[in-house]
């Protein structure tokens, strides 16, 4: 019997051997570099981008690298590791909030840029050349730039560009009233309830992850904690449409015009926007018109590094040379518009009810109905059409000259954090002993007060009243919910009305919920691997960097995100169609690794 069992076993095994594929049967090619010494790559990233790190790890491992992960829990620890140079590649991401390609490259890649860790003359030249060109011309220059940056020198390895998504409760809100713009932050004034009777009684409830607000002074912050808030608290000279075209709609300008030569920009201001202030935690109208004087003051301080301590956005405005009030109508008549026919005056008058009769310097004298207008002229250091995009950015928000000067009485060089309170300090709006709301808002809403749970905004009563831009809803509450899953739950149970940015793996959940609507458009956000430029093997060898570059398979990443990502070849990809594409190529990886190891 024993023998029978044994022979049965043997036969069974033999049959199995015949029809079972082993791993070596299906693996037709060995991976990795032949000589067994695997180059090691350390990937630095945050735990929030764990998925991306895993995909890159997997792709590099399969191409014969020895991969180490350095996962940091938050941005602070990530930055500390990055500054210490403890990485070969850092998983980075960039969002071009101004919607123009110059911003997408300048601070990241130019020598000495705000976030730049590299110095390459050829790249500097290409960035500067492209900045002076018009959109038709710069496509070629940016293509050249990309080829140099990515494919030739491999300073970065692009991963993907994302969609911008938001989910809203369509039972409560009118879906069409909620805008989704490529670059612009969510505009609150257009949003409306299905039931118009609720406009006065019910607050609109939004959510955001960060509860510590960098600063409510627009020039002192440029991050996720304040972008949406400051965008709705301060009006700008121009706005971006949903697909990133510069427009005067909903901005402080009735019209704007570029003078011939691309260095002078004229803005014709509205006379129906007043500052709002907060008294007893309620919004109150001031008689102070948002006028030319405030515009000039705001732009001068935006470009001046020393106007406030800890100025975070001056590099965005470094191309502004001067901003001044124009009082002479004849000046407008003399100047021709850029590339077009007609004078600047004609361009500024387009569509106005009353033609320009007089230009006034004093805010109080402005009366558009009577033909008394205010005009501001911005001059750039060099021909730079993209300056308009920067003027549409949150950091170019208009603040009250009078109010800011009365609060910021300290000397910038002697600023003492413990003693001096700067305009826009979040402690002045946080409930408690330090509460002393001194904000003057030029935008549709004003922040009344906040705590760790939420921030409460009220409609600016003096904001374009009786126009289509007048805010619909009286009160906006912004809930601070750190965890994205929790904030999605809050949306689903009706606690909040809009969720700004929905993670890819939750699309199904949102689409399956009958009261929610998912909106999505391609965004300007790009994720990429940034190579270390100092002290690592990847810093020295372009071949090693290129080996990493060609290991990246963007198709797989898009598959992972179920098609909800877009291919990218650099940070300008969402803005300029350069035609470049990164294709994974195992043969090239081997070739470059071979070259690297032969070095």
């Amino acid at each position, binding site marked *: 019997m024993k023998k029978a069992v044994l022979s049965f076993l043997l036969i069974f095994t033999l049959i*199995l051997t015949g029809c079972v594929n082993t791993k070596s049967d299906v693996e037709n090619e060995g991976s990795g570099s032949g000589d067994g010494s695997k180059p090691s790559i350390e990937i630095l990233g945050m735990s929030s981008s764990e998925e991306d790190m895993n995909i890159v790890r997997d792709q590099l491992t399969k191409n014969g690298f020895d991969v180490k992960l350095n996962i940091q829990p938050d941005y602070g620890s990530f930055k500390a590791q990055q500054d210490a140079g403890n990485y070969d590649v850092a998983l980075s991401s960039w969002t071009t909030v101004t919607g123009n390609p110059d911003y997408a490259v300048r601070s990241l890649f130019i020598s000495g840029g705000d976030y730049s860790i590299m110095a390459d003359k050829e790249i500097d030249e290409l960035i500067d050349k492209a900045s002076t060109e018009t959109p038709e011309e710069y496509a070629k220059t940016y293509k050249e730039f990309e080829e140099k940056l990515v494919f030739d020198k491999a300073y970065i390895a692009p991963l993907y560009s994302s969609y911008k998504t938001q989910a809203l409760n369509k039972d409560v809100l009118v879906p069409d009233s909620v805008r989704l713009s490529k670059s612009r932050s969510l505009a609150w004034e257009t949003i409306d309830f299905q039931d118009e009777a609720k406009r006065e009684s019910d607050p609109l409830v939004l959510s955001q992850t960060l509860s510590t607000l960098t600063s409510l002074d627009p020039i002192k912050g440029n991050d996720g904690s304040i972008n949406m808030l400051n965008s709705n608290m301060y009006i700008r000279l121009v706005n971006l449409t949903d697909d990133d075209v510069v427009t005067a709609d909903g901005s402080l300008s009735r019209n704007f015009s570029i003078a011939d030569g691309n260095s002078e920009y004229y803005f014709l201001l509205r006379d129906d926007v007043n500052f709002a202030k907060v008294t007893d935690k309620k919004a109150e109208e001031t008689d102070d018109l948002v006028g030319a004087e405030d515009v000039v003051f705001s732009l001068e301080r935006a470009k001046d590094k020393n106007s406030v301590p800890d100025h975070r956005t001056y590099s965005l405005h470094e191309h502004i040379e001067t901003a001044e009030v124009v009082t002479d109508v004849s000046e407008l008549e003399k100047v021709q518009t850029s590339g077009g026919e007609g004078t600047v005056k004609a361009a500024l008058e387009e569509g106005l009810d009353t033609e320009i009769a007089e230009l006034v310097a004093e805010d109080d004298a402005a009366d558009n109905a009577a033909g008394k207008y205010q005009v501001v002229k911005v001059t750039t250091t060099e021909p730079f059409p993209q300056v308009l995009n920067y003027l549409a950015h949150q950091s170019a928000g208009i603040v009250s000259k009078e109010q800011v000067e009365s609060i910021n009485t300290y000397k910038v060089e002697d600023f003492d954090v413990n003693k001096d309170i700067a305009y826009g300090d979040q402690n002045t709006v946080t409930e408690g002993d330090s509460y002393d709301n001194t904000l003057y808002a030029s935008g549709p809403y004003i922040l009344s007060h906040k705590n760790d749970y939420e921030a409460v905004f009220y409609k600016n009563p003096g904001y374009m009243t009786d126009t289509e831009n007048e805010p619909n809803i009286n009160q906006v509450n912004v809930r601070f919910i750190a965890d994205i899953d929790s904030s999605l739950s809050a949306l689903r149970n009706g606690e909040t009305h809009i969720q700004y940015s929905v993670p890819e793996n939750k699309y199904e959940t949102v689409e399956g919920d009958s009261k929610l609507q998912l909106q999505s458009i391609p965004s300007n956000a790009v994720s990429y691997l940034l190579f270390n430029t100092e002290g690592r093997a990847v810093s020295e060898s372009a071949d090693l960097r290129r080996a990493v570059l060609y290991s990246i398979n963007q198709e797989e990443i898009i598959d*992972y995100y179920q098609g909800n990502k877009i291919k990218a070849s650099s940070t300008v990809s969402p803005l300029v169609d350069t035609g470049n594409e990164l294709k994974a190529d195992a043969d090239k990886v081997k070739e470059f690794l071979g070259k690297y190891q032969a070095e």
Partner: protein
Amino acid sequence: MSTHKDSLLKKFALKATSEYAQANFALVVSIALTLIFLLAGIDFSTGAIKPVFFSLFIAYAVFSIIQSFIAYQVKRDLKRDGVIRSSTRMWGYFQLLSVLVGNIFTTAFAFGLIKKKKSPQYLFTMFMLMTQFYVIAVSSLNLFKPYVANTFLMGMFLLLAIFVFQLVVLLLVIKDNGQLSKWKLSVGILLILTSLTGNLFALALGLFMLLEVFSKTPSTVAKWYAMWEKIASNMTAMLGLFFILFIFSLSICSYWTFDYGMAVDNNYGATLQMPSLAYPLGTDNFGRDVFSRIVFGARISLIVGVLSTFIPFVVGGILGAISGYYGKRTDNILMRLLDVLYAIPGILLAIVIIAAFGASTTTLVIALSVGSIPTYARTMRANVLMISNMEYVMSARALGASNLSIIFKQIVPNSMAPMIVKATLTIGGAVIATSSLSYLGLGIEPHIPEWGNILKVGSAYLESHSYLAIYPGIAIIALVLSFNFLGDGLRDALDPKLD
């Protein structure tokens, strides 16, 4: 007189017969599982039937009905005759078939029912066979995959051969009449060799056979026999032990029968697939096989769980023994220092250690160990305090034995029992702590299969792909529960007060 004895026998038969309690236990668990499969087998939103779970429900329902019949028969037999009739016992053979649908509760009950006089060897052999059977069954699920590990066939052949050998052992054990036989030496050695596959039931059985061969004092054999009998007769403890050893054996055998690549390599062509034959527990968001990941994850959970219990066991045990034996100032200093450590919450301490030294398996083990040293030291100290005053310690001291020899020869061995029980009970806690830390992103690198990591991925898909969280969750619960059951059983077996 004899009728009086008979009636007494009948009166207490229900309580005295372990089969009756076990029959009810197996019945209740089996019915519970049947209901779970029924709920899982019907899609309530559409009213449709899910074939896999529904057929499992039917199979379990059949065995539950049989089980209730058997339980009824057993009760009737005991009430009427005071003993279980052999015709009732024959039903056990049929119930053995439930091993095929994975109902270990009715199977384990059937083992006990079939044989009237159960030696611990017999039960251990049965559990050894069951472990081996399930390891083979689970490993052979890999046959449905597009490809298997290179060593798969060799591994499976070895496992099958061992299974056949163990069947032979079963026959020998059944025939064994307690006499010293020649085969015991060779079979014992072979069994110990086969326990290299992680089937520690075989190790226990082999050691017992060797003990019988080599032991010169029958009392030693009898002592071991009594202890084993107690554990073996405790069905929940044996089931706990079974599951632990099954997982242990599977994680050792997975070196040959599972392909690690399936668990870590991303496969974007097969992301988030529902459970199927090729992917028995589905695939996760990176297209990795959750089944393989859970099997490989068991390794880390077991290693970290056992090591982070063993280290404080040794360190805390030594510190506790020293402070309990020497007393006075030594005791005061050591215990106050440990009190300081005790005051820090264990999981916080672990988080701090990991934050300081970086996440890796070694730091994880150390982080989890340090926090539980004081509790072991306290347990040991209490035992030592009690035992130091026993007569045999005094006599050893009177005979002039050195302190060290008294501690390690007299006191420590006699205070081990509570420590062992405590250890088995805390392994479960350590397994949970490992998974919790990984879940929080503080444990092992996220792509490495570890139960907490798998659960973390699943938590993001709770609504759309709930199986991603359910299966690793069940694995964690089952392992922790098993350790707790085993701990309870060991306490009953080792506690002298219960003699």
